[in-house]
C-alpha cells in the first residue's frame, strides 16, 4: 500500500497540472461566491450571527454528554430507536442486522457523509442488499464508483458530456448536453426506486436535544422521499451534530444555506421527531438514529482543537481554499476534504499518517474567515504541525533548526555565508531541480530570487562612511 503522503503528492502534482479542470472548478465556485455574498448581505449582522452560532455550538459540544442523553431520552419517548456506535463496525452491524431482521430487499439512500466514512454501501452490497444513492451528485458518483469530490457538491468536477456518457453507459439513456434533461433521466430512473425500497437511509445536519429530533437539509427532495415512503428510516449521524434547542435551527438553517450553497434557505429543511405517530397519514413504521463516534471523542479530548467539532459541514472553507481549488477534492484521499478535512483527519485517522495535510496550506486564513461557526481552522493546521513534530521529530528538520540556531548566534559565520551566497547561486543552475539539488522540490518549478551582491552589513558601513544616515 502506498503511504497517504506519497499518494497525496502524486495526485496533487497530476491535478494541479490539469489546468482546464482547475479553471472549470474555479468558475463553478465563483458563481457560488456571488450568491453567497448576496445572501450574507441580507443578514442584519452576519458577524454577530457567526459569533452566536459559535456560542451555541460551544455550549452543545462542551456539554455533549448532557445533550446526547437528553436527545436520546426525548427521541425514545416518541418511539425512535437510538443506537450509539463507537466504531464503524458497530454501526454497520447494527444496520445490517436490522435490514436482515426486517427482510429488507432494496435500500434507498439520501446524502450522508457519515456513511462514506464507514463505507456503508460496500458493506450492505456485500451482504446482498441493493443500495441506490438518490442525491443526483451522489448517484452520479455511485455510477462512477468514485467517492464524492466535495462533501456538498459531490460531482462538481464533472462536465455535462462526461455525465451524459456515464448515463448512456450505465443506465442506457440517450446522449444529451442539457443539464435539465440529464437531471430528468436521473429523476425517472430513481422514481421507482423510492416506491420499491423498504429501507431509507439518511444523514442529518443537526440533532436537537430539546425535542429529540434530527434535521435534514437538502435541495432536491430526495431526502424527503427517502424518509417518507420506505417502512424503515435509518439516520446515520455523527455525535457532534448536536444543538441544544429547537429554535437554534432558526439561525443555523439560513446560515448553513448561505455558507454552504449561497442560498438564504436550502430547498427543504426537514425535522423528524419519530416514526409515523398515531393519527398521521403516512411515514415509516420504524425510525432508527445511529449516532457514531468513530474517533470524534479523540478530537473532543483535544481542548485546543475541540471547536473543530462545531463544524456543520457546509463546505464554505473548501469553496474559498486556494489549495482545494488547485489540487481538487480527491487528492486529499479523505472523506472530508479541504481545510476542515485537513484539521480533523489527523485526529480521526492518525496524526503521523495524515500530518502532511496540515502542510498543504498557505495559512492565508480564508477558511477561518469563511467559517459560519468561527472554527479557528488555520491555527489548528499549525497546531497539528506542532503536535506532529513534537510527537515524532523528523531528524533532518531538527538538524536544520540546530544549524540555523548556530548560524544565528555566529555573526562572522552569518556574514561570510551571505557574502558567498551569490557565488553559490552562480553555480546553482548546474544542479537546479535535479536530484543533487537540496531544494529541488521547490526549485523544479520556481526561480529563486537573486541574492544581493552587497551584504547589508557592507552596505551599512559604506553609507555611514558617506555620512548618510
Amino acid at each position, binding site marked *: 500500500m502506498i503511504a497517504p503522503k506519497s499518494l497525496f503528492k502524486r495526485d496533487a502534482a497530476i491535478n494541479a497540472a490539469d489546468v482546464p479542470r482547475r479553471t472549470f472548478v474555479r468558475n463553478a465556485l465563483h458563481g457560488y461566491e456571488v450568491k453567497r455574498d448576496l445572501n450574507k448581505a441580507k*443578514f442584519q449582522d452576519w458577524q454577530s450571527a457567526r459569533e452566536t452560532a459559535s456560542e451555541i455550538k460551544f455550549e452543545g459540544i462542551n456539554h455533549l*454528554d448532557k445533550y446526547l442523553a437528553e436527545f436520546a431520552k426525548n427521541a425514545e419517548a416518541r418511539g425512535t430507536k437510538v443506537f*450509539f456506535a463507537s466504531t464503524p463496525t458497530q454501526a454497520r452491524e447494527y444496520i445490517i442486522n436490522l435490514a436482515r431482521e426486517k427482510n429488507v430487499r432494496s435500500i434507498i439512500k439520501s446524502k450522508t457523509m457519515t456513511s462514506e466514512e464507514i463505507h456503508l454501501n460496500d458493506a450492505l452490497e456485500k451482504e446482498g442488499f441493493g443500495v441506490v444513492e438518490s442525491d443526483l451528485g451522489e448517484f452520479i458518483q455511485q455510477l462512477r464508483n468514485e467517492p464524492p469530490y466535495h462533501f456538498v*457538491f459531490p460531482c462538481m468536477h464533472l462536465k455535462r458530456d462526461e455525465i451524459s456518457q456515464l448515463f448512456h453507459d450505465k443506465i442506457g439513456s440517450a446522449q444529451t448536453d442539457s443539464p435539465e434533461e440529464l437531471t430528468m433521466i436521473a429523476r425517472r430512473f430513481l422514481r421507482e426506486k423510492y416506491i420499491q425500497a423498504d429501507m431509507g437511509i439518511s444523514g442529518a445536519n443537526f440533532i436537537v436535544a430539546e425535542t429529540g429530533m434530527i434535521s435534514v437539509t437538502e435541495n432536491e*427532495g430526495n431526502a424527503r*422521499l427517502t424518509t417518507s415512503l420506505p417502512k424503515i428510516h435509518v439516520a446515520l449521524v455523527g455525535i457532534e451534530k448536536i444543538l441544544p434547542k429547537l429554535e437554534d435551527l432558526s439561525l443555523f438553517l439560513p446560515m448553513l444555506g448561505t455558507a454552504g450553497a449561497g442560498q438564504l434557505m436550502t430547498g427543504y*429543511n426537514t425535522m423528524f*421527531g419519530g416514526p409515523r405517530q398515531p393519527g398521521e397519514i403516512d411515514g415509516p413504521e420504524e425510525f432508527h438514529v445511529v449516532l457514531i463516534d468513530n474517533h470524534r471523542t479523540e478530537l473532543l479530548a483535544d*481542548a485546543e482543537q475541540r471547536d473543530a467539532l462545531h463544524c456543520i459541514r457546509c463546505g464554505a472553507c473548501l469553496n474559498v481554499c486556494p489549495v482545494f481549488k488547485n489540487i481538487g477534492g480527491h487528492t486529499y484521499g479523505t472523506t472530508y476534504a479541504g481545510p476542515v478535512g485537513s484539521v480533523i483527519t489527523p485526529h480521526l485517522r492518525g496524526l503521523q499518517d495524515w500530518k502532511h495535510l496540515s502542510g498543504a496550506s498557505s495559512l492565508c486564513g480564508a477558511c477561518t474567515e469563511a467559517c459560519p461557526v468561527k472554527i479557528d481552522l488555520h491555527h489548528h493546521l499549525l497546531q497539528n504541525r506542532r503536535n506532529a513534530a513534537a510527537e515524532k521529530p523528523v531528524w533532518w528538520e531538527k538538524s536544520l533548526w540546530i544549524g540555523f540556531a548556530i548560524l544565528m548566534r555566529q555573526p562572522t559565520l552569518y556574514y561570510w555565508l551571505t557574502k558567498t551566497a551569490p557565488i553559490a547561486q552562480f553555480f546553482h543552475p548546474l544542479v537546479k531541480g535535479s536530484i543533487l539539488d537540496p531544494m529541488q522540490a521547490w526549485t523544479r518549478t520556481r526561480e529563486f530570487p537573486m541574492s544581493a551582491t552587497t551584504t547589508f552589513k557592507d552596505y551599512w558601513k559604506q553609507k555611514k562612511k558617506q555620512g548618510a544616515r
Partner: protein
Amino acid sequence: MSSPSTADSRDALFVRIREALANPAISHAHEHPVHPANVTPEATLSQWLPAVGATFEEQLDLLARNSVDLKTEFKVVASAEEAAAHLNTLATENKWTKVATHRGSLNDAVAAQLTTPVYRVDDQFDKVQLETCDAGITECEALVAQTGSVCLTAPSSGGRSLSVLPPHHVVLARRSQLIADLPAAYALLKTKYGAKGYPSFISFTTGPSRTGDIERILVLGAHGPKKLTVLLLP
C-alpha cells in the same frame, strides 16, 4: 434490537465523552462575546437574521419578492372560488388527470369546485396511487416572509408524501398564517405542539425541488415537485 451490547456501547461512549471533556476548552473564538452573561444566544436570534418589515403589507411584499427569486408561483386570491378557478386553469394548461389532497377546511372548500378527479390521502393512503397524481394540494402551518418558506407538518399538510411525491405542489394558506421570520415559526410550533408533542414531520419548503449538481446550473424538479404554487386566501 435492544440486546445488552446496545446499552454497553452507549455507556462506553458516554464514559469516553466525559473523559474527553475533563479539560475545559481552550478557545480564543469567544474573546468578544456578543451576549452578556445573563442573556442566552437564543434570545437574540431575530436581530441578526435578515430584516422583515413590521407591518402585514411589508411582510406580504417580502414574501412575494422571495417567491419570485425562488421561482415559487405566489398569488393572493379573494376566495375559495378564485383559488379553485386558478387551479382549474392550471389543470387545463398542464393536462392534469388527477389531483391528491387531504381533508381540511381550506382544501375541502377548494376541492369541491375542482374539475379534476380528487384522491384524498387520508381516506386510504396508497403511495402507488399518489405517484400517479399530477398535483398535491395541501394546507400548511405557516408562511415565512423572511425566507419565502412554507412550513409544513404531518397534521397540517396531509402527512409526509403528499407534498413531495406529485410533480406539482399547491399550498393553500390563510392571511393569518403569514408570519415574519424563522424564530416566529419555531415559537408558533412550540405553542401549538410543545406540550402535547411535536409531529414526526416538520418541514420548511423553500421553492420547488432544485439541483445544481451538474455544472452548478440550476435545474428545477430534481426529485420533488417541479412547480410550487402558493395561494393566499382571506
